[in-house]
């Protein structure tokens, strides 16, 4: 089981620039659906990659689903060679995304993101409209049911405001 508090805690403590996206962002906005991992969009500056490496190093990140024993090195060079990484760690599963369909990079998403106050810390999370746009752009059949729930949450929030 993924320890959301532990993962968010180490990212925040190491001052990593990231935005919570995907199922965890949906939970933050009120979704009742289960998610097994933490998805984040991370900033790809050299300094931030170093912070990300430091934040997760103690938790032994490894490629999820890959056979054991692969020469996977958790360092800045590895992060520079790729964009999206689906990892398992001793704190659970975490997906590191350089960009997402319907949203773009950290820099694209940051202005519209909302500040999340959770587990005694502050972190950035996709706003509900951003999340809906991203799910719509992903366009996978399994996203349609999620989209239905997110739109209902938006309707409920709108009804509460009016």
């Amino acid at each position, binding site marked *: *089981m*993924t*320890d*959301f*508090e532990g993962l968010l805690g180490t990212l925040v403590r190491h001052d990593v620039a990231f935005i919570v996206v995907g199922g*965890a962002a949906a*939970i*933050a906005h*009120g*979704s*009742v659906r*289960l*998610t*097994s991992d933490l998805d984040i969009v991370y900033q790809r500056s050299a300094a931030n990659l170093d912070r990300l490496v430091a934040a997760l190093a103690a938790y032994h990140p490894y490629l999820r689903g890959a056979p054991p024993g692969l020469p996977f090195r958790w360092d800045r060079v590895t992060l520079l060679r790729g964009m999206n990484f689906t990892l398992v760690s001793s704190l659970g599963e975490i997906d590191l995304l350089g960009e997402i369909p319907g949203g773009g990079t950290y820099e694209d998403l940051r202005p519209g993101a909302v500040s*999340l*106050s*959770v*587990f005694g810390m502050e972190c950035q999370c996709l*706003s*509900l*409209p*951003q999340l*809906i*746009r991203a799910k*719509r752009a992903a366009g996978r059949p399994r996203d*349609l*049911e999620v*989209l*239905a*729930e997110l*739109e*209902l*949450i*938006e309707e*409920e*929030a*709108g009804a*509460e*405001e009016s």
Partner: protein
Amino acid sequence: MEPAEHEKDPVVEAYKKDLDRTLLRENLKLSVEERFRKAMELARFAEEMRRAGQRVRPRQP
């Protein structure tokens, strides 16, 4: 809140009819932290049920 602008998708609209709005409304009353803690509790429960299912399932020859 600024809603995401989009055209209505008939498949999404069909899914909406089957969603439990009361469940969503109750969840929206919780704080963000309470929503995460509830999700982690559910995940723990699901994992436990999965393990229990494996124990009672007859072993394949």
